[in-house]
């Protein structure tokens, strides 16, 4: 499939996709419950709160307890989604996530808002950029990173349908809408968003849009780039990654996350085990974020289409 970007491209928040999907889930399934850590508007769980107050649980600023309470709800057959900023969702209650959720393999969903450098002015503490590495390391955990509003809705629905713990990463800002209701989404499977033969750009979250822009720019230079939207980082679509390595011979990964152990790491692990090819990584280079406008930060941290284009050329140069 080749995704065609609308001009001008519409902008919408992934976390709103989360909030809207929760309401639809609440209507479809009386077992769906929502918990929040004093951030109902930021996580957009307030839509659900208004519609289903009896199934909405305000937990205050206490992430560890929120995780454990969600676990208890799941033990009794509910499908709890709990949500706070990703930096706290992934770090403050990690021990609870590891032992109570993952070891027991409970049907609890975690909505991590405010992921990535594009969080902007709040600065480093609020820019979650380690969750991919953390969640990937946990047995039984699944990890989904939707690229836009529509995919965020689908990912939230898919998480509810998938038994076991799932972490979903959302962003803070309006981001380009690259998919629509009808764009295919399969939990655990990547999607080819643009065909190509010279190399493959594997991206997730907001970087999928940058990858598609990079593909256009490369096309102008007669370079044919495949774009894979790898929305599910765990379980990983090894088959598609290996096929892309084999068919295009070089890869570029693009993520709004630390370079160590994230999407780039997941791709590298598969590639060296199954079909070694050059991989270039576009990511945050093992440093903390800072305050600034989201656009300024995406530029300064090298997370733009032009950075993917440069990485693509480096990868091609290493291709034999």
């Amino acid at each position, binding site marked *: 499939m080749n995704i065609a970007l609308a001009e001008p491209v519409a902008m919408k928040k992934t976390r709103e996709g989360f909030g809207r999907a929760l309401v639809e889930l609440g209507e479809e399934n009386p077992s769906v*419950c929502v918990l929040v850590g004093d951030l109902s508007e930021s996580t957009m769980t307030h839509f659900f709160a208004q519609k289903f107050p*009896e*199934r909405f*649980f305000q*937990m*205050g600023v*206490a992430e*560890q*307890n929120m*995780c*454990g*309470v*969600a*676990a*208890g*709800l*799941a*033990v*009794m*057959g*509910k499908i*709890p989604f709990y949500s706070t900023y990703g930096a706290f969702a992934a770090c403050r209650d990690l*021990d*609870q996530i*590891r*032992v*109570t959720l993952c*070891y*027991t*393999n*409970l049907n609890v969903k975690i909505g991590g808002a405010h992921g990535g450098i594009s969080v902007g002015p709040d600065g480093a503490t609020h820019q979650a950029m380690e969750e991919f590495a953390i969640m990937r390391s946990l047995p039984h955990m699944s990890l989904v990173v939707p690229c836009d509003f529509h995919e965020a809705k689908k990912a939230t629905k898919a998480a509810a349908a998938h038994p076991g713990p799932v972490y979903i990463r959302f962003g803070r800002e309006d981001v380009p809408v690259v998919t629509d209701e009808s764009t295919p989404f399969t939990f655990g499977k990547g999607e080819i968003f643009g065909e190509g033969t010279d190399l493959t750009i594997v991206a997730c979250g907001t970087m999928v849009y940058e990858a598609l822009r990079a593909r256009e720019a490369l096309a102008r230079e007669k370079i044919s780039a495949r774009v894979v939207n790898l929305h599910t980082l765990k379980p990983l679509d090894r088959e598609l990654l290996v096929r892309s390595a084999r068919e295009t011979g070089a890869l570029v990964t693009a993520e709004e996350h630390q370079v160590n152990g994230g999407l780039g790491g997941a791709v590298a692990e598969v590639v060296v085990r199954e079909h070694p090819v050059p991989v270039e990584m576009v990511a945050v280079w093992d440093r903390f974020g800072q305050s600034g406008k989201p656009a300024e930060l995406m530029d300064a941290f090298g997370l733009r289409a032009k950075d993917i284009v440069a990485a693509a050329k480096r990868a091609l140069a290493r291709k034999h």
Partner: protein
Amino acid sequence: MSTHVEPTATRAHARGRLAWPPDALAEKALEVRRDIVTMLIDAQSGHTGGPLGIADFGTVLFFHEMSLDPANPKWEGRDFWHFSCGHVTPVIYSLMAERGYFPVRDLLKFRTFEGHCQGHPSAHDTPGIEVSSGSLGQGLSVCVGVALASRLDGNPRRVYPVMSDGEQQEGSIWEAVMSAAHYKLDTICATIDYNDIQIDGKVQTVMGIAPLAEKYRAFGWHVIEVNGHDIPAVIRAYDEARTVKGKPTVVLARTIMSKNVSFMEDDYHWHGKPPKKDEGERALIELGTTYEAWKARMLS
């Protein structure tokens, strides 16, 4: 559910609330202690002190207070129990086996590669364990969630978290304590094994938690202080808890670590180590049996 059931070996598998009389409970608590020591002799790994101290109130929970169905652990009419202090597996597994969740002989495979009785409670391995634990301070939150879910379902289920006292140092406990009071969860009746001992010594020396009753009261809980080895008193405590409305209850069960084994009592060195064969045999003699005799009973 509170109909009194005659205490006979077979009836231990019965569905519902057994409500055994104190003398039968005392006898069962003694058997549980024997199981604990025997399984630890064979495992040569695991925790001795906490489990022996919990045996009495634990027996009241499983054979008097709680409504359970060992044959059908997920029975919808069940009360919910969860040991947040996962390291006390010897007493958890013994209570479960004696109550009928699985064969008593399984206890002799404690902490082995083949057995299902993991070092810390594993929902993945042991029938009847609903939530894994072993990292302290996580279990009360789970119970808050269970109580909220039961309320949503209109299920009168009562919820029985068991915690240790060193565990009270974990902040996550106080988050859960705060939320249980905020949501007025009067179906929660927690028990704390208040033996004043943790790994490195006396709790008051390591990191003081006193006055614990005042802490729980300031957090909006109903507090009942009781001698955790006085079975009739423990029964009365749980009866009182069932009458409390609008707030959760915590039973501060004053216990003696390794209770009833003279050379282990109140000694923190027994927190986490098993008795050597000869030590265990001496302990079993103090408990009125022998290793061979009790192991044979467990295997039968």
